[in-house]
């Protein structure tokens, strides 16, 4: 487990992203924070909305984040009211959230905090820069896998994926779902420099674009959702790749599988793996038909954390789950509560 902590604290920034609610994201966060006490100056923020004190749906009490004196935080003004530490205000950011402006502060004592950071990429980058300038050695980002969030976990150096019994009814279910999610997160990034510059242009200029022989074609569509027929027609009429800024969902996958005539070698470009919301079956079929799925920004998953307890009251065998996951994905798997670590 020390190995896991060491690796986490070596990173400049680490986003902790949960597959579901109640997968122990906050527990892992607290574990790393505690492990950093006295070793690394930590910065903390979140992407979008942090959990409420009590999960409204399942009624479980969500543990709040407890930080040691000296930690730097970026959170909304409104969230400060439910934080109970002695604080020093270091800066305001001008970034607005539903709970007010994001403030940068230093903890002058230990205490509980509520995190509510920026919900947009540019805001997050600004906050990370400020925290770095103020001396943070490692910044932890409490993240969300949310199809609505435009925040980009690839802004951070690495990702920790939190999973657990809350994801599925049995061990096999949790393992498959987690494996699939990891596959999607780990899609290859495009490496060809020429294509990369075309890609960057495409993502900058619109939400849906195509690569053809004679160059980049940017459409004026506001979103790829609902534009399935346009995508199918373009791929059938000579486009070698489609560039989608935003999420890719099952409906598009179905249309591609059914109506595109010569799919071999065609590429689907997304910003990163968090934008893929497609089921295992559809994904496998796409690959079998010869599609390539590539991201602009690579995501480095450095570990997976496991919470064997389900909010419905039962629990899975942690060691078996960790071993099964390790066998499937080959990444370090940890259960910080039961002190189990596999593949470290």
């Amino acid at each position, binding site marked *: 487990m020390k190995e896991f902590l060491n690796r986490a604290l070596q990173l400049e920034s680490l986003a902790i992203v949960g597959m579901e609610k109640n997968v122990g994201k906050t527990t892992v966060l607290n574990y790393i924070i505690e492990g950093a006490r006295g070793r690394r100056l930590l910065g903390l923020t979140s992407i979008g909305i942090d959990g409420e004190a009590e999960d409204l749906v399942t009624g479980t009490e969500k543990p709040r984040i407890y930080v040691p004196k000296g930690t730097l935080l970026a959170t909304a003004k409104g969230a400060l009211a439910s934080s109970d530490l002695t604080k*020093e*205000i270091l800066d305001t950011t001008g970034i607005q959230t539903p709970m007010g402006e994001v403030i940068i502060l230093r903890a002058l004592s230990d205490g509980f905090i509520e995190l509510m950071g920026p919900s947009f990429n540019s805001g997050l980058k600004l906050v990370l820069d400020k925290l770095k300038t103020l001396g943070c050695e490692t910044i932890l980002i409490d993240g969300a896998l949310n199809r609505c969030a435009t925040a980009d976990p690839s802004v951070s150096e690495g990702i920790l994926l939190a999973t657990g019994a809350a994801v599925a009814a049995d061990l096999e279910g949790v393992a498959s779902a987690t494996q699939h999610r990891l596959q999607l997160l780990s899609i290859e990034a495009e490496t060809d420099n020429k294509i990369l510059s075309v890609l960057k242009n495409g993502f900058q200029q619109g939400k849906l674009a195509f690569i053809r022989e004679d160059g980049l074609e940017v459409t004026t569509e506001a979103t790829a959702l609902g534009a399935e027929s346009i995508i199918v027609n373009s791929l059938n009429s000579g486009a070698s790749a489609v560039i989608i800024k935003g999420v890719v969902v099952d409906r598009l996958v179905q249309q591609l599988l059914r109506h595109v005539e010569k799919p071999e070698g065609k590429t689907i470009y997304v910003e990163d793996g968090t934008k893929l919301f497609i089921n295992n079956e559809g994904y496998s079929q796409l690959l079998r038909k010869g599609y390539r799925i590539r991201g602009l920004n690579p995501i480095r998953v450095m570990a997976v954390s496991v919470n064997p307890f389900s909010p419905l009251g039962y629990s899975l065998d942690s060691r078996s789950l960790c071993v099964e996951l390790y066998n499937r994905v080959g990444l370090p798997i940890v259960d910080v509560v039961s002190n189990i670590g596999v593949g470290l």
Partner: protein
Amino acid sequence: MEALIGLDYIFQQLNIMTPYGREGLKELQPFKIPQASTLMRKLDDLDLVIKSLKGYSLFYNRIERAFCRLKDIRGSIRRCRGREALDVIQLFELKLFAMGALAIKGYYEAMALSLEGVAFGDLEPIVDILDPEGQRVGTFSIYDAYSDELRAVRERKREVERGLYHAVIPHLVAELKEQRLRLVAQEAALEGELLAKISARLLPYMDILEAACHAIGVLDLTMAKAKLAEDMGCVKPVFQTEVCLKLVKGKHPYVEELLKRQKKSFTPIDIVLKPGANAITGPNMGGKSLALKTIALNALLAHLGFYVFAEALILSVFDFIHILANDYESLKKGLSSFGGEIIQLNQYLEDTKKTRGLLLLDEFASGTNPQEGRLLVKALMQYLKNRATISLFVTHFDGVVEPGINHYQVGGLKHLELGRLTKSLANDPQYGVSILQNLMDYSLELVEAAVAVPKDALKIATLLGLDAELVKAAELYYGQEV
């Protein structure tokens, strides 16, 4: 009117850095005759700043950097004055503002410029209140130094937290957590009291803070005006008591920019306007309207305390600068453009009776039948002829300018023969407008005798591709009537 003459383009070029400067710009009003001395002072101050830009560039850079970090404390000032307690973030912003303003005051006073409206009171006591430990760091917290009781509570809380860190036995942990929560509540209560106390201590200094906001606003705006004048080669307008407006090589920077992009150049205008009626006549597309807007823009800029876009501008202070142009608002109010014009004119004429100003009329009465229009323009010119107000008529009507009225004409196409025009047309029929612009003479010429307006309309229409058969038919009529 601002959009009509291009004033908003100028404002957009200003690099204003603080919310106080932005407010200053929003509230800018042209100076009137009773405020003439203030206007002179504003222009002299601007001159001082422009001349010091190079020599004091280091100071100006530091001031600009301080500007960037200033927060908007106007809301906090209002709250404090309303006897409300400020929160810890508002106190942070006040502290940073006071420290920033102190720095700006230092640089400003070192430059010894003494600009009107830029004076800083003593801000040190404000920083002292918000920095009880004398650290002079750009951060804020409810310091232990504010209250011994607070210091004690926090020490006890730290002890409990240390205990929590090491504790393992569950019921001990629970007890310590309880203790901690009680101490947290105590700390929160004490902090709340202190916030109110600190806010009350700051109350007497709100005037000084507000004055600092104002001073920074004026300084910011003046620096922005100075940089603009330097960058765009503007000159200081010269005000005098004799009623006149003399513009030498006047330009319209927005139009000049547009033309530059098309690789064309702007023809600067020279004109001298006298009290009473003045006129610019000439063919369509000859630049009459633009000349009027150029005069309006520069006159207004001068009255706002800006430098102007010309080689020279000599003028008297006007109590008003009015433009009467095609009013799209009339349609909304259910009036024809002519109806709207008359209603506006009435208001403006009232002003000419009370005081003296600058009245610019762009194609007055062109929204009604030409016979009556002509006569109305002629009559209005006579009406305004002996007033102190300078009025400038831009009109395409013929024979309305009586002797004794200051009369300019645009060069137009009179230097060209029709044959050459049609030849160019044969080569590039779609570029009629562009050719027209290239061939048009936009300079203004003073006309001595009552010269007729050149009959260029048909030439222009031909150049723009009017159907050849129609041109022939028109020429027949021309032959009969002209």
